[in-house]
């Protein structure tokens, strides 16, 4: 394993130091491991806190800033943050209008955020939670821990953040977050495994001619292993999986996301196929993101996330945002 790190143990702390140095709009509390927007807490504004394991950058720290998150809590690599971090962040962004927790649906994330929310409630902090669970590769049934939260997290953070910025109440901000989640679906494909620094070797092994379909964002093996195929076939398989789960039509917000080790040129190849397939299904790719937004360390592969837009959601998506990884309108 070769990585640009000092030690596996210090990786998250070292990267936080880099974020602090690179982004004057952020304030990084290295001791408590919380990334704040410099202006937090904002009086009268609903605070947005998210967090999760590290290794998914720019998620979540890269989405802290005007129009999106107020704070992010990075855990160790692929390990959800601990309740202390979330409590600290929640207090730090509370401007009197309550705080929204945006949580990806994984047992660890759910448990740690739940514990934090309970303790915040004891201290009379108003907290609401949006649980993101958009990954169609996992069936939401008695036989699973429910669907995983993946790409839709970016959409939820952006759109809920825009509504919070506009002065909406905690209930309203939570509601739009849930709406975005309900209208979004994701599907991921891996060409290679990733290597967790503390583990020191790839999480799984794939042959030269094999890929994993239906992967998440933690290097976990997918639902099925399949022969490698042209980008067109993979893009179609992804869009079809989304469409089978939630028929797509009308204006959509589409993200073709790289898993961390995939060159941008390949993501554009995939996007062309995804957009074409969406049109075949009767949907319009009205807004898009192509790039690395929610990654899995150095994994090669991509995920497709589609959100069925409404006029209101489009307006909130288009609203100004100023974060390290997503910026427009200011």
């Amino acid at each position, binding site marked *: 394993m070769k990585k640009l790190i000092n030690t596996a143990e210090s990786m998250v702390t070292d990267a936080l130091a880099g974020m602090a140095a690179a982004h004057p709009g952020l304030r990084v509390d290295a001791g408590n491991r919380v990334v704040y927007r410099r202006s937090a807490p904002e009086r009268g504004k609903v605070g947005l806190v998210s967090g999760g394991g590290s290794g998914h950058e720019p998620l979540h720290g890269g989405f802290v800033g005007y129009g999106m998150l107020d704070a992010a809590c990075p855990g160790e690599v692929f390990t959800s943050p601990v309740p202390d971090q979330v409590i600290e962040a929640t207090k730090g962004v509370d401007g009197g209008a309550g705080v929204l927790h945006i949580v990806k649906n994984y047992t660890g994330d759910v448990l740690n955020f739940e514990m934090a929310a309970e303790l915040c409630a004891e201290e009379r902090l108003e907290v609401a939670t949006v649980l993101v669970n958009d990954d169609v590769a996992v069936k939401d049934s008695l*036989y699973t821990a429910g669907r995983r939260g993946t790409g839709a997290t970016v959409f939820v953070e952006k759109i809920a953040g825009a509504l919070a910025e506009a002065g909406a109440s905690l209930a309203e901000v939570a509601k739009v977050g849930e709406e975005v989640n309900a209208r979004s679906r994701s599907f991921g494909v891996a060409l290679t495994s990733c290597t967790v620094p503390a583990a020191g070797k790839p999480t799984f092994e794939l042959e030269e001619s094999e890929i994993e379909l239906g992967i998440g964002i933690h290097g976990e093996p997918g639902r099925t292993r399949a022969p490698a195929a042209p980008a067109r076939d993979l893009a179609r398989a992804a869009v079809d999986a989304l469409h089978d789960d939630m028929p797509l039509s009308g204006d959509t917000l589409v993200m073709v996301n790289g898993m961390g080790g995939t060159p941008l040129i390949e993501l554009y190849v995939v996007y062309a196929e995804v957009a074409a397939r969406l049109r075949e299904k009767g949907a319009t790719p009205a807004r898009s993101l192509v790039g690395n937004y929610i990654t899995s360390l150095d994994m090669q592969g991509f995920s497709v996330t589609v959100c069925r837009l409404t006029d209101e959601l489009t307006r909130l998506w288009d609203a100004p945002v100023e974060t390290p990884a997503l910026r427009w309108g200011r």
Partner: protein
Amino acid sequence: MDAAFFTAWIDEIARAVTAGRERLTRLDAAIGDADHGANLDRGFTAVREALAAKPPATPGAVLTLAGTTLIRKVGGASGPLYGTALRQMGAALGSAPEVTAGELAAALEAGVAGVRKLGGAEEGDKTMVDALAPAARALTAAVAGGLKDGEALAAARAAAEEGARTAVPLQARKGRASYLGERSAGHEDPGAASTVLILTALHTTATR
């Protein structure tokens, strides 16, 4: 069994987890996200430090501090779950300076109940519960059957091992491994494996 005994148990867990770190990570790589070894190693190292910094006076206080530290330092699924287990055990033991094997058995049952309640997993879901629950049952039964401490803890350990083994062919229904569906069958659950380490450490500590 006094505070020193429980502190020694934690030390032994920490040692075993460091030694078994790679194996736990390998098991987690197969059906999870390859961090279980690092998580527990980080967690129990922190627990050992916390106990050394401010040695608690009672068994209950040792386990409560251990549980709180895990919750504060580990994250992931195993942090809150093992943390809750130890905190529930600590609460069950109260402030007694010494506890019997029977009291420990009851505390372990309380710990299992805490994990069940928090995580919602039943036996057969292929989680740490598959090793923890039979271990608690075996300890209770052994004590009721009049076995000596060492033998009772050996029975608990054996039950944990057997539980972890029995879960291997099962399909996971909780935690990350559940995302794999049928592909989770045939693999040992990392949490069940770490529970075996923890029960083994208990037996080792008692028979040393």
